[in-house]
């Protein structure tokens, strides 16, 4: 059977890479003695996939993943068995059965919602701007017909890509925290997943915000990046969760 489940990644484990997160999960499945289904061929591996890789340094509250089991396991039981084997820093949010022919979460998900917030600190944070300046910067960026950045990675250094189509929306949220009056939170809805996505760090970089890891001078105030959710986005502007069709999804009440 195929299980789709949702999980959160908290602060303690936000520095794990995608591969490290995969390995963590697979070991947890084995500790829970779940009847894993393996791929065929020379190097069998569990049939497990995460809907969209989570960038290093980003916490998340509603990620999705698919797991194939060789024997049926009730979603509620699955959640209980697996929770016991997960370290602090990963929490399960829910699970449900997906049909064997149903498309994978990885193939469905095409959008991600992020919240970028500055860490609060006493004193004026670096990167702070005048009131209204953030909105102006966002409007300016979104108003551009194209945002051309260098293509990262790959053999082809000369390549550039226009990332404007990959940004669905950016909203400026004023924070209530008085220490951060001049540093509001930004809500970014970006394309993600196998059809093509953009890293939130790149977008923040285009807004002049140094948020990526490495190369940061430690005088720059680190921004916290949180992925609020993964979605299926359609042209009419609708956002849907990649839940399995038909079946019941068992959410854990927190």
């Amino acid at each position: 059977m195929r299980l789709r489940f949702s999980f959160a990644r908290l602060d303690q484990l936000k520095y794990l890479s995608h591969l490290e997160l995969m390995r963590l999960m697979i070991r947890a499945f084995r500790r829970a003695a779940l009847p894993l289904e393996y791929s065929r061929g020379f190097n069998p591996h569990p049939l497990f996939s995460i809907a969209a890789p989570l960038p290093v340094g980003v916490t998340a509250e509603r990620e999705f993943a698919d797991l194939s089991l060789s024997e049926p396991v009730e979603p509620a039981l699955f959640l209980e068995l697996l929770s016991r084997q997960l370290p602090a820093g990963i929490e399960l949010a829910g699970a449900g059965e997906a049909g064997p022919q149903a498309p994978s979460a990885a193939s469905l998900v095409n959008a991600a919602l992020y919240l970028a917030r500055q860490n609060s600190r006493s004193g004026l944070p670096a990167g702070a701007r005048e009131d209204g300046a953030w909105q102006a910067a966002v409007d300016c960026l979104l108003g551009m017909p194209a945002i051309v950045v260098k293509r990262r990675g790959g053999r082809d250094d000369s390549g550039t890509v226009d990332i404007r189509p990959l940004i669905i929306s950016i909203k400026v949220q004023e924070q209530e925290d008085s220490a951060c009056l001049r540093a509001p939170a930004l809500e970014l809805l970006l394309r993600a997943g196998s059809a093509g996505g953009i890293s939130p760090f790149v977008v923040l970089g285009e807004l002049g915000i140094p948020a990526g890891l490495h190369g940061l001078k430690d005088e720059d105030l680190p921004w916290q990046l949180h992925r609020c959710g993964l979605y299926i986005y359609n042209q009419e502007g609708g956002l849907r969760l990649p839940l399995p069709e038909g079946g019941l999804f068992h959410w854990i009440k927190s």
Partner: protein
Amino acid sequence: MDPGRRLDELLPLVQKPPRYLGNEWNAVHKDHQAAAVRAVLAFPDLYEVGMSNLGLQLLYEAVNRQPGMLLERAFAPATDMEELMRRHEVPLFALESRRPVREFDLLGFSLQYELSYTNVLNMLDLAGIPLHSERRQEGPLVIGGGPCAFNPEPLAPFFDLFMLGDGEVALPALLRALARLKKEGADRRETIAALAALPGVYVPSFYLPVYRDGVLQKIEPLHLAAPPQVSKNIVADLNSAPYPTRPLVPYIAAIHDRAVLELFRGCSRGCRFCQAGVIYRPVRRRSRSKLKELACEILRSTGYEEISLASLSSSDYPAMDSLLRELAAALPGDKVKYSLPSLRIDSFSVSQADLLRQGKRGNLTFAPEVASPRLRRVIKKNISEEALFGTIADAVKAGWRSFKLYFMIGLPTEEEEDVLAIAGLCRELASRFRGISGGRLRLSASVATFVPKAHTPFQWEPQLSQEEVKARQRLLSQSFRQIRGGGLSWHDAETGFLEAVFARGDRLLSTVLEQAWRKGCRFDSWSEHFSLQRWQEAFREAGLEPEAYAYRRFGYGDPLPWDHLGSGAGKDFLIQEHRLAMAESKKRLPEEAAPVKRGGD
């Protein structure tokens, strides 16, 4: 500011932040208030290297299982993190609690290899602990254990004491004694003197090496509690001794990402260059039923997919086939892979190999060390050519295509023809088996440089000069070029040289070590950090010559800097072994009169 928070702010700025988290699966976070004694195990290399060390896992669980005591870990921070720590005045911290290491009662270094010594000094400095034992008033006791404790003299001024031999019983015992001494209000001096009475404990400040004209005369015990020779600790029964059944599971890929099962400790072979074989003696095995029990628990508590059956010479485990079959039957059927490092050519069988890898066959590794019959007898690693060819033939027939062979050059009595024989052997293997394997045989040879080690029959022998080592490496490299499917790698001659200097070193070297560290030497076993030039300056400034250490030939009667440390092998035995080796060298057996014709010579 709370150290944890300061650290959290540095994490986004460094490579591989999970090195510094301390929240791995099976990490033990004990309450500091409830512990009568608190210790840190410091591994003087990067997290990824230290976490692959079985000894670390063993001691971690052995201590943490005991009530009233705790053990946390500290590793050498990578250079990017070190720079930030110094800049922001964050002292060396223990991973689990993030408390500064200097707040603990005991700081224990795992001394696995000589080139980690500058990291030891660097970690002491980062911790804010005075480098020299005699200058410490308060703060943790600084102790050392592991293979280098059998000749730790270059480190002597920096350590309060060393522990020789097995640690899984002795370390908890020492911590219990320390807890009691703390409660009784003993001061530092009294504490060290009391601990010196424990078996296997060596307090360097209780001994004085006496020199005349720069030559060591003797090592004099200065204290009533100091025996003329310290005996190592031996755990007699490994079946009842602690073993980590809930090992730490790192998030980032350690060098080896699998469960480790120690089949037995010690080695019965007695190869004459090998120090591990001596210091881990006597051979003590775990029973098959115990191993099954441990394997099941470890896989259950970790979720690992691979289990390594480790020992110095794993295939020597009696009835290995039965063990493998029983393990396969006992372990949950889900695709558990086994690996058997350290295979002995003459006790390995392909049926074992088949039980090991399900599906994809990786590498099979053997260590012939030498390729000429005479040298085989000299080093007493007498695996005949037929045995090697036979084993590889079986493996190739069973489908194995990739082999790694370990060799060693610079051994005593070696000549150029012995070095060429290595290439000849590989050439012969390649050509003979290429046919059977359908042309896809991969043979990679890794050539180490002999380092004369303390407590071995070759401890009196000098190391081959760097120039000569490089010449022999070049010779091999040229001969290897013609071998199709063959690859050759070797150890850098300069690091091998420095290793020999410290392996045979005495206390005088401690000034060089400190000077080298002050000049910025760190991570000496990493080629991107090693700087021979800085080391040479350090030697010059200390007025010492490294060649005098690496190239000195000792006489049987010469006092050795490690004579006061007992490895379990008496000097008479070692002398006898050395004599036999030299005698073997002079013999020419009839079959060696006409060397085997090798194609392509």
